């Protein structure tokens, strides 16, 4: 598919997903009610539900999905590894440990955000310090380091899950699977999304060349070290912001960039905006499913991203000519 067409289509997908997210929910509102509430003509229950409950949730889901898809696309290109996703730097493990500890000790709200932020930053710092210690920036070492650290952190998380009283375990599981129920403050995440998107778009041409390897990219005129540091930090910030907002939502950061590549988009100046739009709307749709399918019970959105994503990804893999 030609990239500009895909860009337009994904913008259309955003519109559809937002309309779906705003109109569907556990309170069944009719189409006319939703429409007039959206236009602000009736101030009533529908208006309250849509603007105070659903809109922040939809915006959060979009920001979260956009951030994860963006950081996944960046890390796959930087590490030159198709299996890289947003969490390869150990962000999710660190943040998970932070939030599980917060739940365990009964801390909530802003304190929980703070502990998961500390956990995420601690994990990133550790991965970067170990991998980039010497002159050689070894990408394999970084990936291994991230994987090793993540498994250590997930063991600690399992330990907390075992030790925690039963009533806390459910909340912890929701966090671990990714959950947007408490994501009602998407403002900061949106700022991070815009900032990271702008930064990575300004480096999108060097990013194309960086896939050719360090020597080649530098010989073609890429300011290698600067671009690499900038993009790594951008990807890390994007992941941290997403994880703080919605927990460890899996699959978006791995799958969305791949799906876009399989559809024939390889230049990052197209791949990055399409990734943000599709990642964002994908998570809005998944979150709408998580809110409505078992309503009024809410399911963790991570389950839905996997349930929707896996078949689609397998289908794309089957029909793609390239193995």
């Amino acid at each position, binding site marked *: 598919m030609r990239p500009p067409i895909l860009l337009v289509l994904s913008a259309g997908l955003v519109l559809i997903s937002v309309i779906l997210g705003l109109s569907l929910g556990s309170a069944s509102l009719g189409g006319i009610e939703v429409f007039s509430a959206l236009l602000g003509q009736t101030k009533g229950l529908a208006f309250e539900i849509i603007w105070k409950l659903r809109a922040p949730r939809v915006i959060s889901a979009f920001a979260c999905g956009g951030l994860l898809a963006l950081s996944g696309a960046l890390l796959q290109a930087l590490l030159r590894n198709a299996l890289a996703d947003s969490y390869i730097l150990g962000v999710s493990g660190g943040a998970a440990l932070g939030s599980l500890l917060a739940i365990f000790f009964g801390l909530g709200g802003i304190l929980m955000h703070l502990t998961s932020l500390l956990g995420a930053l601690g994990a990133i710092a550790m991965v970067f310090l170990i991998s980039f210690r010497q002159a050689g920036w070894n990408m394999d070492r970084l990936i291994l380091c991230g994987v090793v650290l993540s498994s250590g952190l997930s063991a600690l998380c399992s330990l907390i899950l075992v030790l925690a009283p039963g009533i806390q375990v459910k909340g912890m599981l929701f966090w671990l699977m990714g959950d947007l129920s408490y994501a009602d403050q998407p403002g900061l995440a949106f700022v991070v999304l815009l900032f990271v998107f702008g930064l990575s778009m300004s480096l999108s*041409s060097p990013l194309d060349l960086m*896939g*050719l*390897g360090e020597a*080649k990219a530098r*010989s073609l*005129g890429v300011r290698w070290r600067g671009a690499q540091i900038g993009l790594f930090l951008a990807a890390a910030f994007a992941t941290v912001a997403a994880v703080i907002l919605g927990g460890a939502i899996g699959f978006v950061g791995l799958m969305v960039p791949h799906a876009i590549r399989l559809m024939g988009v390889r230049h990052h100046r197209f791949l990055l905006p399409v990734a943000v739009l599709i990642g964002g709307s994908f998570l809005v749709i998944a979150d709408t499913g998580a809110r409505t399918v078992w309503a009024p019970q809410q399911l963790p959105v991570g389950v839905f991203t996997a349930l929707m994503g896996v078949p689609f990804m397998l289908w794309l893999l089957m029909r793609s000519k390239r193995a």
Partner: protein
Amino acid sequence: MRLHCEGALYSPDARLLCRQLRLQVEAGQVWALMGPNGSGKSTLLYALAGLGADSPALKVNFQGEAVASMEPKKRASLIGILLQQEEAIFWGSVAEYVMMGAYAQASWQWNRPWGWWRADESRLQAAMASMELLNDAKRSYDSLSGGQRQRVRMAQLIMQQPSLMLLDEPLQHLDIHHQRQLLEFVTKRVSQHPKDHAVVMVLHDLIWPTRVCTHALLLDGLGGAYAGLASDVLTQPRLERLFDCSLQPVSEKFKAGYVPAI
């Protein structure tokens, strides 16, 4: 243009490759860089291209400016290198791969918001035509054979349009037809612009250097180097000593080439 290089050459693991290297490449010259395996040919090319680890032992200047600290895009427009091995992960087409060579020259412009990849279609066609790639333009890069990839990488270097081309084993994987074509292209490029262009290339056989190169640099891998006019440097006794192999001269139009004697 003038490239000047002086000092000692060390391998990445700090082995001494050449004690006292002094090399001056001027516009209009075609250099053959020769020596046994592991004698530091690629390491030297990396250093000349400004890609090597910062080594205070070897000073490389292009028109008096140190290449290691040059602004990357400026350096890419002056010096281009064909690498011996590439770790490229590239899913795009041949034409897209070649177009990446234009990165250093093309800048963002208001009427070209999508940037350099649409930079210069006619130059792209010319670069691909010079390596006989026009029929393969739309094929995907990773479906190509080794020799075809080598030509695509060469076309990318042509797209880059550097003054000085550094070619690390440019003939590898190429059939005879394309070997001749590549050498003819690079030497013509220099002879047609004798004030702007020069080439330094690593060659392994002893037939081509005497015929296409004006100068030669031999690295013996034991700390010694020998540079000068090709006709002075490429003599049978010196090459026999360098490669530890007895040679048989073959002459073609009054120019002697060598093949291993059996």
